[in-house]
């Protein structure tokens, strides 16, 4: 063994062992954050974190369909009991009578802290007379039975005051004593997992628990369900369901598609090489590159996204080309058996192609989508390593006599075909112009500016979620107010001020209603003020005597009231702990939280659905109504606008990055080729392929996303190899090499088209967008590059082969 050979092999083996070690010890993340853009502003970051890890992300919405309402209610209660017995859930609510009683009892007990009507005036003689008279009037209404039951303990009607301000329009209906949809055909539950929203494994386990608890709860009913209609069916939704489903979809897709594309590519190469040894050697750079790519990401980014691994397919399509070029373009010596001696120019061309691709992929590195940045790193590392292994290691490993099929006849046939099917150059110019016209025509709708276009969640799943969310009255977070402050008290006080401003907006019809944690947990200052407005027992009795002198109340009726007001005066302050075991606790946890040194309150807004209303919220009018608050403490956000604006900026960023990548490629080619004509000859087919693919997509009504843009970039990266090889042959006027070049390009292209074509089958939008762009693009790039070759050279190539055969 020659020293150089031993050194190359040794370094390679060591590097691979090291990469394998890194890969084995790397941290892998399977959540979707790879394709959630990093939020730019601090407020949005707070929000994104809360949405990912706050209570909203831990809620699982549960629906039970089928059977009849009695059975559904029984299953609902049984499911709740079974889930509560497990530690995986912090709370399970189904609106059962017990919980409702607890809530009512809580409101009643704390009515003097919670009621917005509690002021000093209300407890003056005049105020008491007015309030008690109103309660007496209620006795003559359909609510009379309730009014009289409250007369002794709550004659001023504070309980009703609290109930009225709770945003009850959004609360779920009840059937058979448990929450149900408005039409009564579905029982509803809400489960809060102990696992964080970002803990996809924990969420998956929670979902599995719900499924098995449901199966157990409904099993007895299932057996007797023959008579009572459809068998009970479980519906699950919420962020956890999305995350878990998306993960399994992506994992499943990645595995399935990687397997499929590998099989296809291996079959193709086996067909071409007709030698398993050659095939295995040919795959060596790919495997090395993939290993190095994952190791590179693990080192560079810390955590490897599952999605990044899935994208490994993209690398196979490109790096398998290198060994194809090496094997196929090597001069055959003798009767198909050869001692491989690759021409130096082959290495130069492969190297330049690799650098071109690296320039393209490098434009992904600064992307704000962590997944795309990782993909860039993965591809760059993988390609460099694959090219290096092809150049330095592969030749050392080749056996003395490697069987390589001579593909000259194939190449010559292709050359003949191409020379016959000539297309005048101006046709290409016309095609290019036509595509530009199509793109110009659709310029307004060219880009899909909706972030959800990237979402792996199906439209059906999103619709179910919206339905369950609406039926459960779970907060719709499309419009919300975020209040920030240094402590809980200041945030709650601000929330009360904002609440009064929002009340005016409700009265004006700008919004339909809103949620506010301060309703359930008033600030200590407000509680103290309310308590202070309650008179002492002696004063209250005096005032009551004066206030009720003219009223038909029996003597001593209000004694209980006087005692309870006295108790409320000295009651301890209401805290989060007091709320425990009520459904208000869940609301407060969702709407009020601490993050680092800051406290935040969330006030989701509800649209006014009244007559003549669009159902949309004019966030500008909301902002105007809240203008008196500092924007650093109170933020009114329309999440759709925010996320679309965010996505818009990413789209612009990606556009700039793609242009920069393109410029880098042109610069690289200019430096290496030192000829404007040759640069143009390389760029023209690539630009044309990009134009045709994007025009075809847009013409077919596909709105381009950020992933299509990346795909277009990949067309340039992959296609540049083809154009460079043609350019090399043309520059050298080398018609003798052309058939083999053509053959190797055809095989390489077939591998790329197979790899990305398989990707196009994916149901995950990010994968399919990439595949459906690159597969046709690569094909077109090769075709255009070949068709731009002078016919004379092609004819020569065909002739050379014929002469050889003769």
């Amino acid at each position: 063994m020659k020293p150089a050979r031993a050194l190359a092999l040794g370094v390679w083996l060591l590097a691979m062992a090291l990469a394998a070690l890194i890969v084995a010890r790397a941290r892998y993340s399977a959540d979707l954050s790879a394709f959630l853009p990093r939020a730019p502003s601090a407020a949005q970051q707070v929000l994104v974190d809360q949405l990912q890890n706050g209570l909203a992300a831990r809620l699982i919405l549960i629906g039970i369909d089928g059977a009849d309402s009695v059975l559904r209610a029984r299953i609902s209660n049984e499911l709740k009991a079974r889930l509560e017995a497990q530690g995986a859930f912090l709370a399970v609510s189904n609106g059962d009578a017990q919980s409702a009683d607890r809530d009512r009892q809580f409101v009643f007990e704390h009515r003097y802290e919670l009621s917005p009507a509690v002021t000093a005036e209300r407890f003056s003689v005049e105020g008491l007379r007015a309030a008690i008279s109103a309660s007496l009037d209620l006795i003559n209404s359909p609510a009379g039975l309730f009014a009289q039951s409250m007369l002794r303990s709550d004659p001023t009607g504070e309980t009703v005051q609290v109930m009225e301000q709770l945003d009850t329009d959004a609360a779920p209906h009840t059937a058979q004593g448990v929450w149900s949809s408005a039409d009564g055909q579905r029982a509803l539950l809400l489960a809060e997992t102990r696992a964080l929203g970002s803990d996809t494994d924990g969420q998956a386990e929670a979902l599995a628990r719900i499924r098995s608890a449901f199966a157990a709860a409904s099993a007895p009913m299932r057996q007797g369900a023959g008579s009572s209609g459809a068998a009970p069916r479980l519906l699950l939704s919420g962020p956890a369901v999305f995350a878990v489903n998306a993960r399994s979809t992506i994992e499943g897709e990645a595995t399935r598609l990687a397997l499929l594309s590998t099989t296809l590519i291996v079959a193709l190469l086996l067909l071409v090489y007709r030698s398993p040894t050659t095939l295995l050697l040919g795959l060596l750079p790919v495997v090395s590159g993939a290993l190095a790519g994952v190791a590179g990401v693990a080192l560079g980014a810390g955590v490897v996204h599952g999605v990044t691994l899935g994208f490994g397919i993209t690398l196979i399509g490109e790096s398998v080309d290198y060994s194809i070029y090496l094997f196929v373009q090597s001069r055959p010596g003798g009767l198909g058996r050869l001692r491989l001696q690759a021409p130096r120019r082959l290495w130069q061309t492969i190297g330049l192609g690799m650098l071109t691709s690296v320039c393209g992929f490098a434009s992904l590195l600064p992307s704000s989508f962590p997944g795309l940045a990782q993909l860039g790193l993965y591809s760059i590392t993988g390609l460099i390593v694959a090219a290096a292994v092809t150049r330095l290691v592969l030749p050392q490993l080749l056996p003395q006599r490697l069987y390589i099929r001579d593909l000259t006849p194939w190449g010559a046939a292709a050359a003949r075909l191409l020379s016959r099917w000539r297309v005048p150059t101006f046709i290409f110019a016309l095609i290019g112009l036509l595509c530009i016209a199509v793109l110009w025509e659709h310029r307004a709708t060219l880009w899909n500016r909706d972030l959800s276009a990237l979402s792996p969640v199906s439209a059906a799943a999103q619709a179910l979620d919206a339905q369950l969310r609406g039926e459960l009255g779970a907060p719709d977070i499309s419009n919300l107010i975020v209040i920030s402050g240094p402590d809980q008290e200041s945030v709650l006080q601000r929330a009360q001020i904002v609440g009064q401003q929002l009340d005016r907006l409700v009265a004006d019809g700008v919004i339909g209603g809103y949620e506010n944690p301060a309703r359930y947990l008033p600030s200590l200052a407000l509680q103290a003020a309310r308590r202070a407005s309650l008179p002492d027992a002696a004063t209250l009795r005096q005032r009551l005597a004066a206030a009720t002198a003219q009223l038909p109340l029996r003597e001593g009726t209000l004694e209980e009231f006087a005692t309870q007001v006295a108790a409320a005066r000295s009651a301890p302050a209401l805290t989060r702990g007091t709320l425990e075991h009520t459904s208000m606790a869940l609301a407060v946890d969702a709407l009020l939280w601490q993050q680092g040194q800051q406290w935040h309150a969330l006030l989701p807004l509800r649209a006014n659905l009244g007559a003549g209303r669009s159902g949309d919220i004019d966030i500008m009018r909301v902002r105007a109504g809240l203008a008196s608050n500092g924007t650093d403490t109170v933020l009114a956000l329309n999440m759709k606008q925010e996320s679309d604006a965010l996505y818009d900026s990413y789209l612009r960023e990606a556009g700039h990055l793609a242009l920069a990548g393109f410029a880098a490629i042109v610069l690289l080619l200019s430096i290496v080729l030192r000829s404007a004509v040759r640069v143009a000859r390389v760029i023209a087919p690539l630009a044309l392929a990009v134009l045709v693919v994007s025009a075809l997509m847009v013409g077919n009504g596909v709105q381009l996303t950020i992933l299509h843009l990346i795909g277009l970039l990949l067309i340039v990266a992959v296609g540049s190899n083809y154009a460079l090889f043609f350019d090399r042959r043309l520059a050298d006027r080398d018609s003798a090499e052309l058939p083999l070049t053509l053959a190797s390009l055809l095989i390489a292209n077939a591998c790329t088209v197979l790899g990305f074509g398989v990707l196009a089958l994916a149901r995950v939008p990010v994968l399919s967008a990439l595949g459906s762009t690159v597969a046709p693009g690569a094909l077109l790039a090769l075709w255009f590059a070949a068709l731009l070759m002078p016919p004379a050279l092609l004819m020569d190539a065909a002739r050379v082969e014929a002469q050889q055969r003769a």
Partner: protein
Amino acid sequence: MSRSMPRRLDRRGGWRGWAPQAGVAVLAMLWGLTVTAADASGLDELMALLAQRKHGVASFEQNQFLSVLKRPAHSSGTLTYDAPDHLEQRTLEPRAQSAVLDHGVLTMQVGGHERQLRLQDYPQLAPMLDSILATLAGDRGTLERLFRLEFEGDLAHWRLLMRPLDTGLAAHVASIRVSGERDAVLEVEVQQADGDRSVMSITPRE
């Protein structure tokens, strides 16, 4: 976040509607007649008959005998019903006020300001209203789920006595007695658990 207070009773489809029925004056009590445990066919016939009424206007007089009050609370006014779920109670005496029931939400104009109660948040209200509404809708299934029923008399002069099955309801309401003639409800008497009592007499106008 949902922190709603769900209703305790089954009222799928919301309020079934209230149908003041045509008829004449309050019946004399049918002393001595004790046809308990409901003549099944009689009750079925009554339910079918009641279910056919879709619209009505009636005047009412209500007397409530409450221990908290020095004297009985007397009120009077009109009732208007439109199928399926719209009911208005306009009280003229002693003070003008109105209450509109729609989809389980009670909107009241009392003392010059409006207030809204979602009935599912007030389980104390439910028994009386549910019993009357289910009676008038001819919804025997709902009635039997909530109450033990005793039907007395015949279609010409009937009384329906309902005792709550649920202990929660029974804590507030001892019994509800609805009486009428054919498809007309003429009197509703609620006997509360604490001994208080209210009687509403109904005189159909249309």
